[in-house]
């Protein structure tokens, strides 16, 4: 065919489409809910929630991301729940008591069934915890429960958990790990379980179209009563402007992760709802390198930062200024602690005398905050500059001790001060990470005691003392605890945001508007 007389580009297009068609064979459905067509507005009783990312899997034990758990936790449940103050409340366990400081007995809810009809009992609890801890399973969640030694079935509705050491944070760990049906998982295997998961939760899994939607239907037999809505859809919308637009146009009812500076722009038909979050932002200072090896310089840095201004300017007031490395709902938050007040005069008296420039390390996500902090330090006379690193490079710097100072954050969804104190200020658990290089025997000892004490009042007292030591020695400038903000349409009734981002939608109703 040396010279075609009538070339037809159209033919080429058809061919191209054909090629593409053969490249991918289909399977499944676009979605499986099967009820009336239409968006959030028209589907009767269909609640649509938009998050920033898709789920990674429906297997509750094989991921470690919050967006995944938010979805998973509407289908599955844990032994213990958390209320809005992050206190443990009954979920699949109706109650628990401690036989001694390493032995816990859990009484399980009776007459609960998984969505496939399998009865929920003590074997499922044992199976689930052991599945997470099984090295062969390689669950990313294993470290959350590593304190557990044995799980014993006492009778059908009683489970005894023993721990290697006293474990005051056991309940917090159990709250974020869901129970799966032992017989079903054993029978079908991991892969098919992830494809067709069954839990005990208020919603049943109906289908997942990756990057498009997860479809769930109400579980009419839910032990807590059938949900008010017929179906629940989770949609991943990564771009925040699109997420907000989808909310404004009524395509979705709840849009999660709305940045504070955009919360005011939701407009008619929807409003921003905030709840105190669980993330603590801080400026960390390397106590072994100049200028922060000087205690007075670290204290001056604490006095130089005006946290209220940061909260107002960067978060529209939707953040709390912190005077210690903890937020008020946390177990171990010290009510009477004296932090440092904003005192620019006292700060600049010290900081102006610091000869060397200071580099503040940050990652892209905290850049704005880091720059604002650096600006305030500059105003007080310190030559502070922000350098932004790629995440891995940033971690290498702070873990090796190469960093002089850095702005970062630590999420404490467990609501226990131990999570932050033990990780950052307790030598044994830093795992070779340098961070600020700050250690004192007294505080190490306190944290060790806090970890092994069960008496809540005694723990509060121990952590309060540890907090006071940390604030006196001042390796950190605790900064802010921002709110979690969601956009919610006015038609949504009975929904409260959760501090850990969960969607507790069992009681949510939709009003036609």
């Amino acid at each position: 065919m040396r010279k075609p007389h009538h070339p037809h580009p159209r033919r080429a297009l058809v061919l191209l489409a054909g090629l593409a068609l053969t490249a991918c064979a289909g399977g499944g459905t676009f979605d499986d809910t099967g009820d009336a067509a239409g968006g959030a507005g028209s589907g009767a009783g269909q609640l649509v929630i938009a998050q920033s990312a898709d789920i990674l899997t429906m297997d509750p034990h094989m991921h470690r991301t919050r967006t995944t758990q938010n979805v998973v936790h509407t289908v599955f449940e844990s032994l213990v729940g958390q209320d809005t103050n992050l206190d443990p409340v009954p979920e699949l366990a109706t109650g628990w008591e401690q036989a001694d400081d390493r032995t816990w007995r859990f009484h399980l809810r009776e007459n609960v069934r998984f969505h496939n009809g399998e009865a929920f009992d003590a074997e499922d609890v044992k199976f689930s915890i052991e599945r997470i801890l099984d090295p062969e399973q390689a669950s990313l969640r294993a470290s959350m429960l590593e304190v557990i030694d044995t799980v014993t079935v006492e009778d059908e509705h009683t489970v005894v958990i023993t721990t290697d050491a006293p474990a005051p944070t056991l309940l917090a760990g159990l709250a974020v790990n869901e129970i799966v049906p032992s017989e079903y998982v054993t029978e079908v295997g991991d892969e098919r379980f992830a494809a067709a998961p069954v839990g005990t939760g208020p919603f049943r899994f109906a289908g997942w179209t990756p990057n498009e939607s997860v479809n769930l239907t109400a579980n009419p037999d839910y032990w807590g009563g059938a949900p008010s809505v017929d179906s629940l859809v989770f949609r991943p919308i990564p771009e925040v402007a699109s997420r907000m637009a989808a909310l404004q146009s009524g395509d979705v009812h709840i849009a999660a992760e709305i940045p504070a500076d955009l919360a005011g722009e939701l407009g008619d038909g929807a409003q921003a709802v905030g709840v105190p979050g669980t993330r603590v932002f801080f400026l960390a200072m390397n106590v072994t390198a100049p200028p922060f090896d000087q205690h007075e310089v670290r204290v001056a840095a604490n006095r130089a930062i005006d946290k209220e201004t940061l909260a107002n300017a960067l978060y529209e007031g939707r953040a709390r200024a912190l005077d210690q490395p903890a937020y008020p709902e946390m177990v171990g938050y010290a009510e009477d602690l004296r932090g440092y007040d904003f005192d620019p005069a006292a700060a600049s008296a010290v900081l102006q005398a610091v000869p060397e420039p200071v580099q503040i390390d940050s990652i892209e996500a905290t850049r704005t905050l880091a720059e604002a902090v650096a600006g305030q330090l500059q105003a007080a006379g310190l030559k502070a500059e922000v350098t932004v690193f790629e995440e891995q490079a940033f971690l290498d710097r702070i873990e090796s001790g190469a960093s002089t100072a850095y702005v970062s954050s630590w999420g404490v969804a467990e609501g226990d001060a131990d999570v932050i104190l033990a990780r950052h200020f307790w030598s044994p658990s830093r795992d070779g990470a340098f961070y600020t290089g700050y250690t004192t025997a007294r505080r190490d000892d306190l944290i060790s005691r806090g970890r092994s004490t069960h008496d809540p009042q005694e723990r509060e007292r121990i952590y309060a003392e540890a907090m006071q030591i940390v604030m006196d020695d001042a390796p950190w400038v605790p900064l802010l605890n921002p709110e979690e903000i969601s956009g919610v349409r006015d038609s949504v009734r009975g929904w409260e945001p959760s501090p850990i981002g969960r969607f507790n939608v069992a009681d949510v109703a939709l009003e036609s508007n």
Partner: protein
Amino acid sequence: MLGFVVRRLGQTVLVLFGVSIIVFSLIHITPGDAVDVMFAGENVSAEQREQYRRQLGLDQPLVQQYLAYMASAAQGDLGTSIRRGTPVTEIIGTTIPATVELTLAALLVAVVIAVPVAVVSALRQGSVWERGGNLLALFGISMPSFWLGIMLILVFSAGLQWFPASGRVASGTGLQQITGFLLVDAVLQGDWAAAWSGLVHIALPAVTLGTAITATLSRVLRSGLLEVKGQDYVEALRARGLRFTTLLRHMLRNALPASVIVMGVRIGSLLGGAIVVEVVFGWPGLGRLVVDAIQNRDFPLVQGAVLVLAVLFVLVNLFTDILQAWLDPRVTLTGVSR
């Protein structure tokens, strides 16, 4: 012609070999240990990391790793996603129809807008039409697609509420997946509600993605038309009193080859542009998968997705070259045949 195709195929194989080496190296040229990078800042024990290293074959010699990777890749096995625990090929397979659908829709938008604009601005040189066309082209080329996308969302979704802001189809259609191409499937099943929903969902992303190539295409087509406009055969045809549409058909056919080449190259860049547009519009395609995989530091998935994108790119270019040779025989003569 056949010799040209064979020669061109040979080049493609070479390019694909190079691509495969680069994709394979991704996991090794990253500074630091790949598994440590993947789980940076996460509480993953040393034993678990060791297990992931074994799973990824990182404990094997490099050459052996490459051969094993390519051997399985040739059989359509690109490994297992670290974060999702499902085969990479399967995950990518579900996203390709969405991306191809979006690319074709963008192409359609581009052609529908660019051809009339090019014709008018070529034939009415110096008129207000031409200046308008130029302005439109400049606008299209200069506008970043993420900005245009968000503007369209703000105006047409949030404001006028004519089009949905994101997604591929309204939830709850219950449409069965046959080919994976939503519009095709909807038509095959006679589900007109789903087809309509698919159309309104694809409109804004297709316009956003299509705008950039509309500009390029209309410029190239216009200069092609200008070139043939002054040629003798056009004068001759005109002198014979042919109808305008017939005349235009002859002109377009001769102005086409250059445009096809440009389009071919642009389809390649469309795949790249699709990444941005897919993220903005929450479109469940390959581009968004790459972004997700990078954010989750899921190396096997990144590798697989980049490999598939590169192969698509190379194949589109190959296809364009062959098409070009077919449309314009001079290419084979001057190019390779002799």
